[in-house]
């Protein structure tokens, strides 16, 4: 028994994927190494064995030579892996956001998904786990298809899934003039807020502007709007230096947090409305439109966040 040799064979054994003849393979390698060592060095010692073992090759590489075409997932299905994971995670993400923002109870899609009602910190740890779960589920599905050894044509073949490369996003280059205009706009908005303590006017009568919201709501929702504009300007400025997906990811995550804060801290009787006679219908309409704008903003931020996240994950996994 030579410890070095037995350790080496044990390592090969741990990498070997063969259905039968494992012992024979190892015995043959053992016999070869011993005979070669004896012929080249005259006697077998741990040192001389070590030299022959190094020449024989790394255990993983040696074991790979014995692969018999056994595959966990067929290469023809690999291109579907990211597409299906992406679709599944998109659904999972949307359901999670719905539960997080609007839901009062958990969501269960038997037997695959269970989305508990959760707080913000739980959400942050839940999303990566959700991605791993979805990835595993798709792997599991593709594994069974591969092992069935049948010619199964997977759905959505016309989708352009045959491009595993990550297409480089051709972003429009930022222009300094737009940045200046945005900054001017931002200054105007901030100065309007400082002067009138609201950004939600009924009329543009600068002497005595009427606000749609009560003072507290005016303050918070105006600050919310100013923060969003500021973030947009910061995001735009970053594009002068980097096209990284991390920038939209962080900004959209921040938006989602802001929306979450607004939803979770409703202000009583925030909407004052347009003062006057018989304007109930107009007031209701304004309320509905405001709600819709907020929902569209949330969905848009969620989609952008998801797109950036998927792009980053795909890049990382492909690497």
């Amino acid at each position, binding site marked *: 028994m030579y410890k070095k040799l037995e350790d080496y064979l044990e390592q090969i054994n741990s990498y070997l994927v063969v259905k039968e*003849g494992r012992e*024979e*393979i190892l*015995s*043959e*390698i053992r*016999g*070869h190494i*011993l*005979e*070669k060592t004896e012929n080249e060095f005259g006697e077998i010692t741990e040192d001389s064995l070590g030299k022959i073992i190094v020449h*024989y*090759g790394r255990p993983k*590489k*040696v074991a790979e*030579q*014995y692969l*018999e075409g056994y595959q966990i997932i067929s290469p023809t299905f690999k291109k579907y892996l990211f597409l299906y994971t992406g679709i599944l995670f998109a659904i999972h993400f949307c359901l999670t956001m719905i539960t997080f923002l609007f839901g009062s109870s958990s969501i269960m899609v038997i037997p695959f998904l269970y989305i508990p009602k959760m707080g913000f910190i739980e959400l942050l740890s839940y999303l990566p786990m959700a991605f791993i779960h979805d990835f595993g589920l798709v792997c599991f599905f593709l594994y069974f298809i591969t092992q069935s050894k049948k010619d199964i044509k997977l759905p959505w073949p016309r989708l352009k899934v045959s491009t595993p490369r990550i297409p480089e996003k051709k972003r429009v280059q930022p222009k300094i003039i737009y940045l200046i205009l945005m900054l001017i706009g931002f200054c105007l908005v901030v100065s309007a807020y400082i002067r009138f303590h609201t950004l939600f006017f009924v009329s543009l009568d600068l002497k005595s502007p009427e606000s749609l919201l009560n003072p507290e709501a005016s303050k918070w929702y105006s600050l919310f709007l100013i923060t969003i504009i500021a973030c947009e300007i910061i995001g735009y400025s970053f594009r002068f230096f980097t096209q990284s997906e991390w920038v939209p990811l962080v900004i959209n995550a921040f938006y989602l947090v802001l929306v979450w804060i607004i939803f979770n801290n409703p202000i009583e009787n925030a909407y004052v409305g347009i003062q006057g006679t018989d304007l109930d219908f107009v007031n209701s309409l304004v309320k509905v439109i405001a709600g819709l704008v907020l929902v569209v903003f949330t969905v848009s931020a969620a989609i952008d966040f998801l797109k950036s996240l998927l792009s980053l994950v795909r890049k990382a996994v492909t690497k």
Partner: protein
Amino acid sequence: MTDETSKFESEMNRGFLQVLVLVLLEKSMYGYMMLKHFERLGYSVEENTLYPLLRRLEKKDFIQSEWDVSQDRPKKFYVISKRGRCARKELLKIWREQNEILNHLLEANKNV
């Protein structure tokens, strides 16, 4: 030899080694003995290439094996099978035809 040429060489060797083994195993031999034989002919083969190849050929029934345990160190001897001989005949025919095509093209190039 450049990296690219080296890659080509290993690709060419893959097929060539199979034919070579089928020719060599007319006589019963074990792995290390075969490697030594190739070495004497000036053809270098890595051991971790030869043994998996022998296993694949055995699975295809082109060669047969038998363990010799009469000595201290057991050895696995291989010899070509009937099926292997048929395959060898076909492979050699293909190899000769390919050789002819190549020679023909090289001759034609001389006149250019």
